[in-house]
């Protein structure tokens, strides 16, 4: 699967890349929302793993922008577990949520499940 990971934390990007590349996916990294949008202009992705709290552009803003052109599956990685934020993200067009800290095995499971759909 062609996956874009957008997160401002390098450590988390590294964790996700290492976890999913091992499973045979192709990963592209974006350090913030803008970079993510730029990547979407160049390529098409099967899955977007998106951090909620990022500088310059929040995850929600990225979803809205991406949803203008794409119906890619979006998984929100969020440290913010408040219901309010989740609903906002859902409304904007997020498909799944994964709370930080997350288990890499669970992430693999989720991605596999999404791939099979």
């Amino acid at each position, binding site marked *: 699967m062609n996956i874009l990971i957008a997160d*401002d*934390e390098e*450590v*988390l990007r*590294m*964790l996700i890349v*290492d*976890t999913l590349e*091992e499973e045979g996916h192709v990963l592209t990294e974006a*350090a*913030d929302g803008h970079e993510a949008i730029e990547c979407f202009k160049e390529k098409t992705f099967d899955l977007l793993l998106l951090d909620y*709290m*990022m*500088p*310059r552009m929040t995850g929600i803003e990225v979803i809205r922008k991406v949803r203008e052109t794409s119906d890619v599956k979006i998984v929100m990685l969020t*440290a*913010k577990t408040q219901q309010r934020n989740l609903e906002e993200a859902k409304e904007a067009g997020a498909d799944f949520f994964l709370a*930080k*800290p*997350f*288990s*890499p*095995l669970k992430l693999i499971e989720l991605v596999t499940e999404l791939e099979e759909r």
Partner: protein
Amino acid sequence: MITLFRQTIRKQFLVIMVAMLLLLMAGAAVAYLAEKRLADEYMEERRKMNEKVKAVGLVESSFKHTIFSMRGYIAFQNEEELQQAYNSARKLKEAMRKFKPLASSSEEKQLVAELAEFNGTYTNQLVPKAEALVKAGNYEGVRQLSSLGTTDQILSLIQAVEAEKSGLNELIDQRYKQFLEKTRALNAAVAGYFVFVFAVTSGAVWLLSRKLGQPLQELTAAAEKLAAGGEVHIRQIKRKDELGVLSAAFVHMTKTIQEREHELTAHNEELMMQQEELERMLAETEQMKNRLLEVDQLKSELVSTVSHELRTPLAGILGFTELMLNRSLNQEKQKKYLTTIHQEAVRLTNLINDFLDLQRMESGAFACSFEKVDPAPLIEPIIETISQTTNRHHFQLIDQRSKKWLSGDQERLIQVFTNLIGNAVKFSPQGGQVAVYVTNNEKNMLIKIKDEGLGIPAAEIPHVFKKFHRIDNSDRRKIGGTGLGLAVCKEIAEAHGGTITVSSEYGEGSVFSVLLPLWEEKETTVNGERSDEYIDCR
């Protein structure tokens, strides 16, 4: 009595009016009396003169009768005539006796004397002589007798008496004229007197009204000024009349009004001050509210920040440990993961430490143990550690001290330097030089940390040391942090009796300066008990 009456204007008027009335009445009385006397005198004189006229008339008629009867007797030898003549002569005598006391002028007296003499001679000598001659029929003798001048004398006497009579009548006329003139003069005098009294009264009234008018005008002017809101300084008119009373009342009123006004002004000022105070308090309350709201917002921001900042390293630690536990990894990967895990654990520890420090600061339980500290060996390992996390920066420690020791809490100072050098690296993402200067003067050690990074906007400089304050610019959004580091540094520097300041050129870099007191040998002996105050800082 006048002074007694002077007390009131009404009384003054009354005095004037009464005086006028009295004067008029006195004038009238005097005029009446004078006129009465004049009239009385005149009437008396007239009566006397009439009496005189009557007496003269009687003298005249009896004289004429005597002469006439005598002539008749001589002419007709009639006894009766003779008798008549004697009778008339007696009457004349009688009339003479009556007239005599009335005769006043010398001519009259002379006339009386002449008549008396004539009568005497006539009745005593001539008549008996003539009688005898007639009885003897001697008319020659009678003729001789008469030619002796008797007839002339008689005629002149008759003339004199008649003249006296007409003279008297003329006198009466004259006197009457005189009386009329006198009466007229008196009337004129009375009229003049009345005019004079009236004039004097009018003058007095005019003077009085003028005396009233001026103070009244002054009072009116003062009242108008007072009504217009002006300040009035009026002196009380020292008078015993109503004006004096009015003036006193007015002065009193003015005083009262002005006092009230001052009171009101004072009240007003007080009210205004109170209002100002209230407004100030309101503004303060508003400010307080805003600050509370701000603090509230800061707190909720802190919660979300802390939650985010805690979860991020935890995610790394948990994720990599899980991978390590579930995958067989080569040595290189294992080392990489472990380094990351360690790094994230340190980050987590720092965050928790900062947060706990902050909590202690807020609760006031924050103390340091001061000892002899050489800052250079503290800074070197910090630079060493941090330099391992970056390859874009190069570090420099420039030691220009003349004194080695400062007074400080080693652990705390490590915290400060770690934070400042960490910031210098963190906020210069393009890299560059990070220089640490150590200098001193007589009293203080100065440690400057200089970078070539993003710098701080001038407007943010006063705020960077505030708790939770992070600059929200796009150039540093991806740089993590809690906004606690500098607040902690400031607290520590101040607990040392030092300061921390920053100067920065936005976009060029920043210089953070920490000023700390030098170690004084005496301090240990003098403030020897200091170590007793030791409270675990960590």
